[in-house]
């Protein structure tokens, strides 16, 4: 592994040089990549949920972003400048998210912004990006209003996204559901943008694929729900045959555990959780995760079977002693995309980087991907699969993967309204 040793030596030399002589030293060590002669680090502000019952999520994003930063810096940084990354807790609150973005740009001097878990925060921060005049790459918040309305219809050009939108939760799920022996669906989902928009999309598309389905009930749980018992008993009172859910993080863990107590898995034919294959949920439920539950995410560590994905998994496991969750991959990819775009543009200027990002092709851990020019949305495919317990892994994994092409389930410009 000669290149790796070289990289390590370079990092060692570089940190020594920095320690001895400070930043003023001529940077001959960045010669591996095009030197933009910025003479300063490229600052990237990342915000994610780092506290409360969903804090495990942000931790995975932080790990992915940190790994990318370390790898890129070991290879000489972006255009010869090292990345300096800073993390702030988004708290899933709109006012906090906006404040973080302003702080990053106005006070800390960020060149780029990445992260954001909440759809509502993504929309709110997206609104102020023209005034901040920086590129924002969202790595988790998934509402379609971000790429379809904000970017495509209203031309907020600073906004990009490298994770699959709710098309994963609402349309790919419907492609799975149409072949399941279920006619009566109900949902238990979060009572905010993401939960409502996913359920709306699922209903609209499933009805299109399979006109005789019925949607018999819904129970929306507020953020911070610690007990799902009343939601479960309400929904089960309507005798559904299938449950569709977009609960995530610790709330998905609690919901599944309690659904198990209520014997929901014996009484229904299918249970689908859009974010059920996120690593924190797989690890959190462990042996308690019932076999056969349909789950997905915005990346699943076991897919695709490619050299890049294997390399990423190995590097991540070596660095953090856990398998990556999807925010790890999307944050990792956001930084790789920025590196590629800045070096292509030979500049960190917002306008030039936007142009470089539009249509950019990436070979990311999740597979080949292109950033669509019209709506600044990264297009790649993530499978759905069924939970199983494989003794080779310390947590449940997916089997029976259903792989659809992005072309089959991504909504396309000009984005006809979702009826229903």
């Amino acid at each position, binding site marked *: 592994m000669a290149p790796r040793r070289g990289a390590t030596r370079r990092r060692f030399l570089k940190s020594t040089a920095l320690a001895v002589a400070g930043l003023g030293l001529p940077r001959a060590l960045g010669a591996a990549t095009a030197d933009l002669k910025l003479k300063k680090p490229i600052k990237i502000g990342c915000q994610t949920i780092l506290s409360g019952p969903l804090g495990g999520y942000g*931790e995975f994003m932080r790990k992915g972003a940190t790994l990318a930063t370390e790898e890129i810096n070991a290879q000489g940084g972006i255009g010869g400048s090292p990345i300096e990354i800073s993390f702030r807790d988004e708290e899933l609150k709109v006012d906090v998210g906006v404040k973080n973005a302003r702080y990053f740009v106005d006070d800390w001097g960020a060149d780029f912004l990445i992260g954001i878990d909440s759809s509502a925060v993504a929309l709110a921060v997206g609104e102020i990006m023209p005034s901040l005049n920086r590129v924002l790459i969202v790595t988790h918040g998934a509402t379609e209003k971000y790429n379809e309305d904000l970017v495509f219809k209203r031309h907020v050009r600073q906004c990009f996204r490298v994770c699959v939108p709710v098309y994963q939760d609402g349309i790919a799920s419907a492609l799975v559901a149409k072949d399941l022996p279920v006619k009566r669906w109900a949902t238990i989902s979060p009572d905010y943008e993401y939960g409502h928009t996913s359920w709306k999309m699922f209903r609209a598309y499933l009805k299109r694929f399979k006109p005789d389905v019925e949607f018999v009930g819904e129970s929306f749980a507020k953020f911070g729900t610690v007990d799902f018992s*009343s939601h479960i008993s309400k929904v089960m009172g309507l005798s559904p045959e299938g449950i569709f859910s977009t609960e995530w993080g610790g709330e998905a863990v*609690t919901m599944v*555990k309690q659904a198990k*107590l209520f*014997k929901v898995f014996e009484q229904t034919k299918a249970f689908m959780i859009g974010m059920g294959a996120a690593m924190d949920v797989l*690890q959190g439920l*462990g042996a308690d995760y019932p076999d056969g539950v349909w789950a997905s995410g915005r990346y699943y560590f076991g897919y695709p079977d490619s050299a890049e994905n294997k390399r990423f998994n190995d590097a991540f496991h070596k660095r953090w002693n856990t398998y990556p969750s999807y925010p790890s991959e999307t944050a990792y990819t956001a930084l790789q995309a920025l590196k590629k775009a800045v070096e292509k543009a030979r500049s960190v200027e917002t306008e030039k980087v936007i142009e470089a990002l539009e249509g950019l092709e990436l070979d990311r851990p999740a597979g080949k991907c292109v950033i669509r020019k019209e709506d600044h949305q990264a297009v790649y495919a993530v499978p759905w699969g069924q939970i199983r317990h494989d003794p080779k892994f310390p947590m449940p994994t997916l089997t029976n993967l259903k792989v659809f092409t992005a072309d089959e389930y991504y909504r396309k410009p000009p984005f006809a309204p979702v009826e229903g």
Partner: protein
Amino acid sequence: MLFQGLVGLSEAMYLWLVAAGLSLIFGVMRVLNFAHGSLYMLGAYFAWVAFRVSGSFWVALLAGPLVVAAVGWAMEFGFLRRVYSAPEAFQLLLTFAFVLMLDDAVKLLFGPVYQSPPTPAALSGAVLIGHSILPTYHLFILGVGVLVGLGLWVLLWKTSFGLVIRATAADREMARALGVRAARLFTWVFVLGAWLAGLGGALSMPVRAISPGMGEFIIIEAFVVVVLGGLGSLRGAFVGSLLIGLLHAYGLLFMPVFELALGYMAMALVLIVRPWGLFGIREG
């Protein structure tokens, strides 16, 4: 219909255990313990550790709350007793500081990942009620909640320790003048309150995801319960918890859009009509 109420009542039991300790501590010591939710969180984490070590849910249920009681003792003995004579704002600040410290301590010690051991086999069954399925665990929780209520009633009304607690709660100066050693009593009351919160947390361990910050959600509801029932009244805390549980369960069924607001609306209503709470004692 009735079944939904039963489920709501079982959810209310965790709240009752937290609110009972909160109310008891306020009633006797006049301290509003913001960190009470954090003690609930510690109960879950310590029980989880005990479960990992022993492999037994029952050992975890016993050990977790006891360790929390010890933490409660350290909190009262080391910190709180120094601010009893300080203005209430200082007491609130101190207990709030504990919320932040305990959250971060848990994050440092156990990591931010959710933990959730399996539900014990003996309690993971279910019973059929009409056409609906109620988990055995929910029945168990209802039983524990009622038992704790009875236990507290016996302790407060049938023992001399209870007599001293009630006397001190009613008139602190008089009790002290009659020879009650308030300092020691306060420690015991706080330890008991902490144990109750720890028990709630330990009971939640196998059925709710454990995570740092899990106490912050329950403490707000517990405050609502205590205000609703009357500060310092255990009967109030019990009835308040049940009321919140029922409002939540039936709110979801009949007016899901307002469900979140119902508990707060009930609290506002009580504050307007009976500012001292349903079972509180009118002061002055």
